[in-house]
């Protein structure tokens, strides 16, 4: 007897590249209260919306690195389909250097980026409100040698005027990729815009060529993400103001 076949019944979910979004979150004491509250709210709301964004192109994973007195991985890369955000608290110092070291260590084929299916260039989203309290220059130098980090789209969200924006600019290597929030509402909006835009751009490459000039989004992913984010921000009166005015008072 011969068992007949239906090929489509043998089909499983296709192999896809993975897009890992690394969130590097400052949870030092100065973040406690409305700041960390806004971070928790925004993350809880935006992560479910990422489901399905990868479409047929990519599986989206989320990794969360928190830093205060020392740094630790709140979550290693996990599929956004199953991700449940657990509120984080804020207490302690701002050991930014420790976070950079851990990020560098785990952005590796031997560590977090070990899937055989291939990867999209990662996305790193840094959120901080303060000044590092440990030494961070050497760790950043080291991180900059990391090939994954080199290819990554790096965006930083400065939480309030007290943030050392120079440090964040060093992280993103691009002053335009440092966005400032002045109120908990702004912060929530920014986290959402940055997360959605960078994951959309990161998971799908679209090429547009006119008259034999090839351009695509991914080859300048960071630039493209920054441009898309700022175009979005310009549509919001509050966020638009923070794009152009450094002297806005904080309301945290």
């Amino acid at each position, binding site marked *: 007897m*011969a068992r007949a*076949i239906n090929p489509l019944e*043998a089909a499983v979910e*296709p*192999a896809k590249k993975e897009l890992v979004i690394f969130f590097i979150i400052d949870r030092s004491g100065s973040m406690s209260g409305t700041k960390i509250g806004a971070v928790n709210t925004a993350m809880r709301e*935006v992560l479910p919306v990422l489901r399905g964004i990868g479409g047929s192109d990519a599986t989206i994973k989320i990794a969360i690195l928190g830093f205060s007195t020392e740094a630790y991985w709140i979550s290693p890369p996990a599929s956004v389909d199953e991700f449940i955000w657990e509120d984080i608290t804020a207490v302690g110092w701002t050991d930014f250097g420790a976070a950079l070291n851990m990020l560098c260590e785990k952005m590796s084929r031997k560590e977090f980026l070990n899937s055989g299916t*291939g*990867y999209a260039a990662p996305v790193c989203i840094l959120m901080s409100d303060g000044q590092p309290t440990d030494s961070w220059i050497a760790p950043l130098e080291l991180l900059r040698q990391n090939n994954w980090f080199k290819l990554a789209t790096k965006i930083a969200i400065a939480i309030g005027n007290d943030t050392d924006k120079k440090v964040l600019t060093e992280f993103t290597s691009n002053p335009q990729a440092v966005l400032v929030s002045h109120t908990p509402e702004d912060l929530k909006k920014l986290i959402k815009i940055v997360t959605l835009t960078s994951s*959309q751009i990161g998971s799908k490459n679209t090429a547009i060529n006119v008259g034999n000039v090839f351009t*695509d989004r991914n080859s300048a992913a960071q630039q493209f993400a920054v441009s898309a984010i700022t175009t979005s921000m310009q549509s919001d009166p509050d966020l638009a103001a923070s794009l152009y005015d450094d002297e806005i008072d904080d309301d945290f």
Partner: protein
Amino acid sequence: MIGNFKNTDITAANVFHGIRVVLSMIEFDIGTRIPLESGGELEILRTVGDGGQGTVYKTAYSSREYALKWYKPEYLKDLEDKGILRKFRDNISENVKNGPPSDKFIWPLMLTADHEGGFGYLMALKPDNYQDFTDIFNTHDKYGKKVEFRDLKAAVNSALNIVEAFKVLHRSGYTYLDLNDGNFFINTQNGDVLVCDNDNATSQPIFNIGKPGYMAPELVRCDKGVNSSALTDYHSLAVVLFKLLIRHDPLMGKNYVKSVCISAEKERELYGVNPVFIFDPHDDSNRPVFNIHANPINLWPLYPMYIQSAFVRSFSEGMKQPGKRLTEYEWTKVLVKLRDEIITCACGAGMFLSGLDPHELIECPHCGHTYDYPKHIELEDFRISIFPGNEILNCHIHGGEDYKTVAGKVVRSRKDHARLGIKNWSARSWRIKYPDGEVEVVAPGKIAVSQLGMEIEFAPGVIAQVIE
């Protein structure tokens, strides 16, 4: 400024129009009114989806409901920077004027007037009983709900219908820019296909846009003088069909995995500069990888040789020589052949006959029911299994591409289940010659009892034979 910023929290939106869902941060408030170019106003009812090019809303206009695709400001800015925004808009205007090539296209119906620096167009809403091709490919929707075809016939029908849509589009003088899995809605019950995002259909390809995995390599490389055309669409068509049947990217093999990080530069190499089909008979450098690429490894061998050859021709020879890519006519022919090989068990399960031993009983993988290996109606180019439910189509009898008109159907006798017949669904009588020399005329609506060795003259000069 585009729209009023809506400071609401995230709401779960539905998957719509092939555009992946995100909550747009900048979206119109419910009730916003936007003027149309031709006069009148639409009203925003709710957001249904969001993607790379725009946001889709459910809207009301003159007491009917429509979908509105509203372009994202950064997409329009991108087109403006490249100096093609005006032409892009004119193209949609032209499409609106010309109307859809067939009712399978969710076509732009009306442009909006410029509104707060942006614009969009109205089209029909996606019917509820259609699924995104992306979800079929992924085997589930974004909520994890399983999405699959009702049976094999529905799956092969959908492949035929995608080919048909391309054919109609091309014969109407259009090519399709930015073709990808997001452009099709499929009814998984019967394989019906609707094509959306037809702002990308154009008769004057002024620019090329797309996902590299779907674009012809000469477009990915940006070769001089090459524009979107039927030939580049044939590559995209083959990619779509491969993804539908084999559930994998035809160029995603060892080379892809070796690249580790698929940067834009890598992508250009894998899909443009050095594209190698994973089953290229003369180049095994990019084979699927064991334990990673399960679908091509498991599914490819289950398809008959003529399907494999069709993909090999499209992706091996056709990669460098666009003229070698299969046309719609050729795809229709091989897909009809594939459809002819499907037998459907009484339990509803569909299966392929190819690869089975004609001397053995066939066992349904679902219910375990067994069947004799069927006899066949042999025509010049086709072999149709004489199995209840199987159809003789116009294209079987007359050639050509009409795979939709049924001319005859295999039926089972109610009194004697072992007896099979062929019912004449056509408008003309058939002449039957039995092996013993007896001749019979089977009028429309009548049944010819199947017998080994008998001949059926479906049309003058078109004589089929019933064989083992």
